[in-house]
């Protein structure tokens, strides 16, 4: 009895602590230099990758694309357990090795540094026949998740992402090879390539493990008969399985390998609905420069790809803020709004980054109807807001192929429903198709007025009860009139910003009377700015 008990305890211990059972860990080993070694971009890259580089004005023969020195790799190989892959972008090799082995590797004269990367585990699931029925709420959400982004305007303009190649990185695309929501893509041979970066040799099968990626993909491009789930139904796709389980146990190395693969295969957009938070990092490390995945995402942007990433689901948790790589400055981070309220949904992670940059950049529905492996389903998370915006980005890029990825990034921000107002829960709001399909300058008449005295600023909403108080135009007031649409028209957004452009506090009010807000100017030191957005109209005033 006692022996059996001890055996169970020891087994449990080894299961709980695999590090004790197996000392091999994942490492990134960085090299000091590399040579061109006969690199021919026309042989290495897909034609679309060449096209993207030319359009973006990027060099075709860039040192960061040169192969890693094979001699270095060969010298390291016998010293470690296994070489996983080589990273051209970071001039590094990912390996499985013990700490002792890494110590020997570090002695090699061409090795610059070694970085520990967390390992992970696997979980597999199975599903039955496909169910396309929806209840009233699911239909309503499905309609809203696209209409808020301007599906009608895109359809009217004939934009569906055609010609845009989107790489989707996720935990698994269970049954996506059979789910009817992707029939149109498969039938038109627009699924260009698949790769499983969680397995050695990167096999092509990604249709197992988890249905999260299936749902995410459907939010970009899903369509069943005439029922549209995502906006980019005409786009081309690359599917990469980069995680083995849920987000918290996943791999950053795989993400980097997949990003280089996507670059090589001509991806224009990367959608990644994942994030790394407290299990690996501290809040103050969310500066876009610390984590490997954020550096990789920025590198992907430097290669001309638009990287769209979920802000994260830590809004109501202790972490609270966006994770990595949503903290990267060149990543279009997408937060979630609640369809039932029209503003920030509680779980959506907040900004700013630890170095006080605005995140998320934009928002979309955080509660969606998606095509799961077994049928249409309701699901939630910024994981699904991100692909909605990735689909939007594909349509926007199709509408103007002269834009570089970062120009498109800025244009999507400008198309936000609250632009130029922003806060750290909504970014610039929900991107609007009308911005791209129409004039790019949708004017909104003032929806509120300011009544200013020496000591106070009073904000009055323009309603029947508001009387005829006019704004005092002699003040240092800069009015913006290019907000494209009114979204959540009864909500009054305002923030207090410091002289460096960093928001100190921000609010959303439900307006129940015309006199919305009174602020005592004497309570603020000089240099603060009051920013207001109400019913499509934004305004800033110095306090």
């Amino acid at each position, binding site marked *: *009895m*006692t*022996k059996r*008990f001890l055996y169970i*305890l020891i087994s*449990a*211990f080894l299961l*709980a*602590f695999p*590090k004790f059972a197996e000392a091999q860990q994942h490492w990134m080993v960085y090299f000091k230099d590399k040579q061109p070694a006969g690199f021919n971009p026309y042989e290495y890259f897909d034609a679309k990758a060449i096209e993207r580089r030319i359009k973006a004005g990027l060099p075709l023969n860039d040192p960061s694309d040169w192969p890693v020195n094979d001699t270095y790799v060969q010298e390291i190989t016998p010293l470690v357990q296994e070489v996983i892959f080589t990273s051209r972008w970071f001039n590094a090799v990912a390996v499985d090795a013990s700490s002792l082995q890494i110590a020997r590797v570090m002695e090699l004269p061409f090795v610059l540094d070694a970085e*520990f990367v*967390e390992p992970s585990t696997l979980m597999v699931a199975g599903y039955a026949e496909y169910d396309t029925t929806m209840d009233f709420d699911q239909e309503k959400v499905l309609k809203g998740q696209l209409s808020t982004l301007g599906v009608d305007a895109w359809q009217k303009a004939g934009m569906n992402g055609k010609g845009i190649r989107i790489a989707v990185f996720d935990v698994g695309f269970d049954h996506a090879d059979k789910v009817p929501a992707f029939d149109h893509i498969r039938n038109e041979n627009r699924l260009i390539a698949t790769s499983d970066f969680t397995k050695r040799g990167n096999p092509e099968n990604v249709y197992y493990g988890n249905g999260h990626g299936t749902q995410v993909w459907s939010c970009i491009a899903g369509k069943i008969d005439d029922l549209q789930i995502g906006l980019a139904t005409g786009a081309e796709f690359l599917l990469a399985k980069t995680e083995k389980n849920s987000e918290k146990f996943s791999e950053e190395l795989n993400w980097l390998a997949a990003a280089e693969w996507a670059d090589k295969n001509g991806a224009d957009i990367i959608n990644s609905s994942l994030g790394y*938070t*407290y*299990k*690996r*990092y*501290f*809040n*103050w*490390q969310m500066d876009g420069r610390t984590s490997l995945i954020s550096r990789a995402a920025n590198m992907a942007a430097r290669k001309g790809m638009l990287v769209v990433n979920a802000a994260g689901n830590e809004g109501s948790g*202790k*972490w*609270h803020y966006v994770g990595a790589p949503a903290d990267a400055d060149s990543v279009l981070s997408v937060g979630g709004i609640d369809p039932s*309220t029209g*503003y*920030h949904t509680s779980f959506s992670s*907040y900004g*700013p980054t630890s170095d*006080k940059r605005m995140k998320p950049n934009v928002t979309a529905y955080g509660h969606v109807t998606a095509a799961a492996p077994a049928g249409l389903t309701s699901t939630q998370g910024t994981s699904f807001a991100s692909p909605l915006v990735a689909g939007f980005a594909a349509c926007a890029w199709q509408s103007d192929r002269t834009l570089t990825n970062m120009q498109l990034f800025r244009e999507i921000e400008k198309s936000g429903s609250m632009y130029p107002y922003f*806060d*750290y*829960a909504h970014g610039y709001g929900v991107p609007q198709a009308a911005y791209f399909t129409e004039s790019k300058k949708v004017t909104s008449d003032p929806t509120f007025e300011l009544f200013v005295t020496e000591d106070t600023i*009073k904000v009055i909403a323009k309603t029947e009860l508001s009387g005829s108080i006019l704004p005092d135009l002699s003040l240092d007031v800069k009015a913006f009139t290019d907000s494209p649409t009114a979204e959540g028209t009864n*909500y*009054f957004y305002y923030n*207090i910003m410091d002289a460096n452009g*960093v*928001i*100190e*506090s*921000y*609010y*959303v*009010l*439900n*307006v*129940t*009377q015309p*006199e*919305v*807000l*009174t*602020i*005592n100017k004497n*309570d*603020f030191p000089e240099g603060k700015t009051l920013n207001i957005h109400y019913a499509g109209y934004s305004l800033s005033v110095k306090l």
Partner: protein
Amino acid sequence: MQVTACQLNFNPLVNFMKRIILLALLLVTASAYTQEILLEQNVKSDSIRPTRGPNLKNFTHFYIGVGFPFHINEEVTYTKFGTSTALDFGFRYKRKFSNFFATGFDLGIGSSTYNLSQDVPKTVPDTIINEKEKFRILSFSPSAYLRFNFGRRGNYVGNYLDLGAYGSWNMRKLHFTINKNEMDEKVRVETTRLDYMESFAYGFLARAGTNRYVLTAKYRMSDIFKSSYSIPELPRLTVGVEVGLF
């Protein structure tokens, strides 16, 4: 910051009361709204770097655990394995020195129950055979430990190994027997003030944890029974599980 919202004119009395309430609120909070606040975030206060947290300088939490005492030598079976238990509840403090090393202390209370085997020859605490018999010791146990953490991580407890030592004050020592009388009724006898038991104990502890889930082991170095009574010792090793309440 003072941010006030405007009010509509209603009944004068109601308005007066509202003013009073508003004034009171202003005095207390220096801010008030009549609009419904749907979202409020203060970035400035959020941005202060904390020092308390699972992988920060100081971390405190409560814990609850259950252990099972058993004899290392299988030839000796004074207690019934599985029904003898050691329940623990306590407060734990951790002081981080590096990502790898931390130290701390526990203040715990415990209830250890030793269900005594009635197999012949019975020697603990005497040779009398009962239907059921057990000791229960209620104790206060402060302990100190060294923690060795493994792996890079954020504000997360992670995987660790604790090694430490504990002392116990056995506040209450009880002996129970249950037997049937001639009427086939159960007779439960509780004996307190057990002079043959020690009031203090000490020993070593080890814990292997992953975040809040912990495997625990305690080895008692001291004797439970006073040596002058020559009573065979109860199990020294207690192995169990613990959950951190955080």
